[in-house]
């Protein structure tokens, strides 16, 4: 008896290490930590999912029942909080843990699923589902699928097919719905079938100013730019001001702001013709590139014009 138990526990120990290394899951999780700033609840949930799948894999090796857990998810959060980025990582993680076979991500919106006339929707939805099989289907702004004000809308048909596949072919694909929190809540309220088939409701929190500055630095580093110390201070000031304005879209607004800063930097360098430029010059974004922003010039007067800050 004790012999049997001993061998059992031995096998156990060997397996978890082997599987862990084989899936290289730590690699993905580390990258997640390094490249995604903040998002603690999201990361925690991903870690939990990874652990569950790992343990399930182990159980299967020891012939214990491991019911295929449902992995459909909903990502809710404000614009620019990293929903698509995380979905992309999710496909990779699920693939490494052997939950999906191919690990590709198919990102769609209402237009790709819902047809324009009778009989057009079902084939269209099925086509998309087939394309996503073996991977992850990411439906952005999923609440547009359901339009309660128009009872002849074909979105409901699409939802019906989605539900059917989500239930019957769980092993074949994972569906991730994404959208703004309040609208998604309303969407789930009117589609209780959808809500109950989704195991993981993950809420993406907004970034705080410090996190946004860090994101900006990561983005700049990716494209071989950097901010001077002075510019960094100005930028954190910028972030605080920008956050109070309408149409603030977290990381997306930061990316836009940086794009404009690069534009001004290029302009500044162009106007300083006549002297030799160094590599550092080309890389560095100075405070004045940021200070020319409309936000500093006029406050929130022209706040609605997102493209001209």
């Amino acid at each position: 008896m004790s012999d049997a138990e001993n061998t059992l526990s031995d096998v156990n120990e060997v397996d978890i290490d082997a599987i862990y290394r084989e899936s290289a899951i730590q690699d993905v999780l580390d990258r997640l930590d390094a490249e995604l700033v903040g998002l603690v609840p999201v990361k925690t949930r991903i870690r939990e999912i990874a652990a569950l799948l790992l343990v399930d894999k182990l159980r299967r090796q020891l012939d214990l029942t491991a019911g295929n857990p449902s992995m459909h998810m909903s990502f809710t959060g404000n614009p620019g909080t990293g929903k698509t980025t995380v979905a992309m990582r999710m496909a990779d993680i699920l693939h490494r843990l052997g939950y999906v076979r191919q690990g590709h991500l198919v990102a769609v919106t209402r237009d790709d699923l819902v047809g324009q006339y009778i009989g057009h929707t079902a084939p269209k939805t099925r086509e998309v589902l087939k394309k996503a099989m073996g991977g992850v289907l990411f439906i952005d702004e999923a609440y547009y699928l359901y339009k309660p004000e128009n009872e002849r809308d074909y979105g409901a048909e699409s939802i019906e097919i989605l539900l059917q596949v989500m239930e019957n072919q769980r092993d074949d694909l994972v569906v991730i719905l994404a959208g703004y929190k309040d609208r998604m809540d309303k969407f789930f309220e009117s589609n209780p079938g959808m809500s109950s088939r989704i195991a993981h409701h993950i809420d993406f929190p907004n970034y705080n100013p410090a996190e946004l500055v860090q994101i900006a630095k990561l983005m700049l580093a990716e494209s071989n730019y950097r901010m001077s110390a002075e510019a960094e201070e100005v930028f954190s000031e910028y972030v605080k001001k920008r956050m109070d304005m309408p149409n603030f879209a977290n990381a997306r607004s930061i990316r836009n702001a940086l794009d404009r800063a690069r534009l001004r930097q290029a302009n500044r360098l162009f106007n300083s013709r006549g002297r030799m430029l160094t590599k550092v010059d080309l890389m560095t974004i100075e405070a004045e590139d940021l200070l020319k922003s409309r936000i500093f010039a006029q406050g929130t007067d022209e706040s609605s014009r997102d493209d001209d800050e």
Partner: protein
Amino acid sequence: MITNPTGRLTQGQFSFLPDLTDEQISAQIKWALAHDWAVSIEYTDDPHPRNTYWEMFGLPMFDLKDPAAILMEVNEARKTFPNHYIRVMAFNSTRGVESPAMSFIVNRPANEPGFGLVRAEGPGREIRYSFHSYATDKPESERY
């Protein structure tokens, strides 16, 4: 002979074996996808061996990555044409090859009447032989 003792059509791969299960079909499709061959589904109710081009079912499936999706389409085809021959093909588009690499039947009618040998007399007691599927005596879509 084309009509064999089991009375079943023998064209393409695996046709002397018992019908493939869905799992086995998936495994074959997986093999095809692993080689980057384009998989398609075709059906017909005219099983003459020289009837090379069957009707294509649905859209071509160049962009599908997983056998489950193609199996779903196979089942759709079976539902639509329960009494037709349905085959899965894999096309190898490598330059210089450009031909079907795989072809196997995944659905056949419940009753396969087989083929008759037709002898046509020509000048000088010459005889020309041809095959004739009994099923094609009836008009299309009423054959099985």
